[in-house]
């Protein structure tokens, strides 16, 4: 069994075994974080790879103030947020110039890929995920990490570099917005 300090030291020396060990240990959690936020398996796979590439390249800057896991998941959240912002910007541009920018909005079928969706409640899950996508990025991140991924408030706040109070406020605003979006969703799909 290797200690965290030993693993970090070997990673800083670009040790192949240490990197493989790190990926093996954290890949599923990193993937779950980015998948829940991006709701697309290809984007999630791509972003999860980018997370590990960044870890490999910047491990020498890691100062052991936080746990290695926290540092990794913080990078995952940041990368997923960056990707989310670029997707949202792309979709906004698509609304203005539909002939210029292809959109990914219509092709999303996250319900089909999310293993946590309860079989008899696919319709509700689809409505919820579609509404979550409409939330502002910060609210979407807080809501996804806490309510869809079951993360404790303290951990989500630490990954988002925010206070617990700020995250609580984001969740409360997200809930108000979601209620509104869901009502609109069912009015449109009557």
């Amino acid at each position, binding site marked *: 069994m290797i200690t965290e300090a030993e693993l970090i030291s070997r990673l800083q020396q670009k040790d192949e075994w240490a990197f*493989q060990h790190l*990926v*093996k240990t954290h*890949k*599923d959690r990193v*993937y*779950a974080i980015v*998948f*829940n936020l991006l709701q697309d*398996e290809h984007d*999630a*796979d791509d972003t*999860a*790879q980018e997370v*590990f*590439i960044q870890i*490999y390249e910047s491990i020498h800057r890691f100062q052991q103030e936080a746990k290695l896991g926290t540092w990794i998941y913080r990078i995952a959240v940041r990368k997923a947020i960056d990707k989310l912002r670029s997707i949202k910007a792309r979709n906004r541009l698509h609304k203005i110039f539909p002939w210029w920018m292809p959109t990914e909005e219509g092709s999303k079928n996250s319900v089909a*890929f*999310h*293993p*946590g*969706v*309860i079989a008899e*409640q*696919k319709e*509700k*899950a689809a*409505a*919820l*995920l579609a509404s979550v996508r409409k939330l502002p990025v910060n609210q979407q991140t807080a809501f996804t990490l806490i*309510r*869809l*991924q*079951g993360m404790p408030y303290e951990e989500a706040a630490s990954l988002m570099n925010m206070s617990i109070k700020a995250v609580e406020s984001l969740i409360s605003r997200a*809930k108000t917005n*979601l*209620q509104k979006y*869901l*009502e609109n969703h*069912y*009015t449109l799909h009557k």
Partner: protein
Amino acid sequence: MNRKNISLEEHIRSIDPSIQPVTDDFFYTRLKGRMQQKHEYVMPFFIKPAFAISSLFVMLLVNIIVLNNQKSTDTPKNQSAIELFGKEYDLFISTPY
């Protein structure tokens, strides 16, 4: 569904947070492949878009400057050349017929 019956909590319960998506077994292989590709291929500076576009602009600018200079010096030069040509062949001598 009736607007009043919509319960957010009920919708949230349609996804079980204890079951999370996972990657496949080939994730590390794909990751290594991508890292190797990234480190092997370094684009030569002269085919980088920034270099290509800026050199195109420089060439365009040089062309415009040369063309402008030519235009401004063109008229007197041409005139003196015509005069020289005319003098050489006595073309300016009017011949009464």
